[in-house]
């Protein structure tokens, strides 16, 4: 053979820039990857409303209770579907917890007083109003006065 070992041309591609780009892509996807889906049940198909105001960061952080209601009017709570009677009891418990928390913070709220916590309704588009209204009146009876009705800004 004419070619000797010393004359071999070794092609070593520089992988470092490629690795840089890949890591940047991974960082991007990690940042946009949403893990906090605890309050947002995927079984609920929200209706669409163009003028629903997107929730900003400061609003998300405020004290709130999210009620996911499926098409049958059941409350989806901690992975379980509660019938309305059990759901009413759970709302009562939540109101008591809010009162206790406020009391610990030095802001005592009397029974029947208005609570600062917002109730966020994430109801399925097919739930009848009678079910929604029952949840609303239950929350009102327990002192909740701040409400928000969730909808999608565009068809998803």
């Amino acid at each position, binding site marked *: 053979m004419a070619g000797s070992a010393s004359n071999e041309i070794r092609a070593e591609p520089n*992988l*470092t820039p*490629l*690795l840089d780009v*890949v*890591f940047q*892509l*991974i960082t991007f*996807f*990690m940042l*946009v*990857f*949403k893990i906090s889906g605890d309050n*947002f049940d995927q079984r609920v198909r*929200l*209706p*669409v*409303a*163009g*003028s*629903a*105001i*997107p*929730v900003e960061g400061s609003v998300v952080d405020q004290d709130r209770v999210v009620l996911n209601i499926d098409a049958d009017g059941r409350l989806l709570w901690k992975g379980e579907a509660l019938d309305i009677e059990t759901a009413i009891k759970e709302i009562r418990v939540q109101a008591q917890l809010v009162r206790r928390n406020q009391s610990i913070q030095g802001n005592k709220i009397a029974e029947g007083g*208005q609570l600062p916590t*917002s109730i*966020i309704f994430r*109801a*399925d*588009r*097919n*739930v*009848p*109003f*009678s079910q*929604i*209204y029952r949840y*609303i*009146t239950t929350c*009102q*009876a327990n002192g909740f*006065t*701040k*409400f*928000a*009705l*969730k*909808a*999608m*800004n*565009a*068809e*998803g």
Partner: protein
Amino acid sequence: MRRMRSQEVEVQITPMLDMAFQLLTFFILTYRPAPTEGQFSMNLIPAAPAIDMAAEAPAADQEQANNELPAALRTLTTIVIAAPDGGIARIIIGENEYQTLDQLKARLIEIVADQSLKFDQAVIQADPALSYASLIQIVDVFAGPAVNLTKLSFTELDPNGGVAL
């Protein structure tokens, strides 16, 4: 001093690149850009006849509030009758009936533009069978930029009384 022979240490990038590509593949496959959720915020205090929905009105404004019109004259009551499928069959404001959301929107724009009417809040009396999607459509018209009537409250329409079907 004797000089040490330099030794080339080759770092194997290939396994790291493999792993990085696997991670990248995972994130690309699981990435689902969710459509943004919005919300309609409102203060709803327990229903009472002609109630003022400004639940958080500060005490300092009390005197000024007393000089205003009573809540009953500032409250626009809208009745929504449901179709059998939960959609909107009819919308009633006063003595007028509307079948579509466009008609409702046009009427609300007229009402808001009328300087003699002082409506700044609305009560939506909804049929129990009305779907949440239809309710949101109504709320969307009220809270939209054209009408901008954001103080809303809800009551349930008695299916046996009130409005004749």
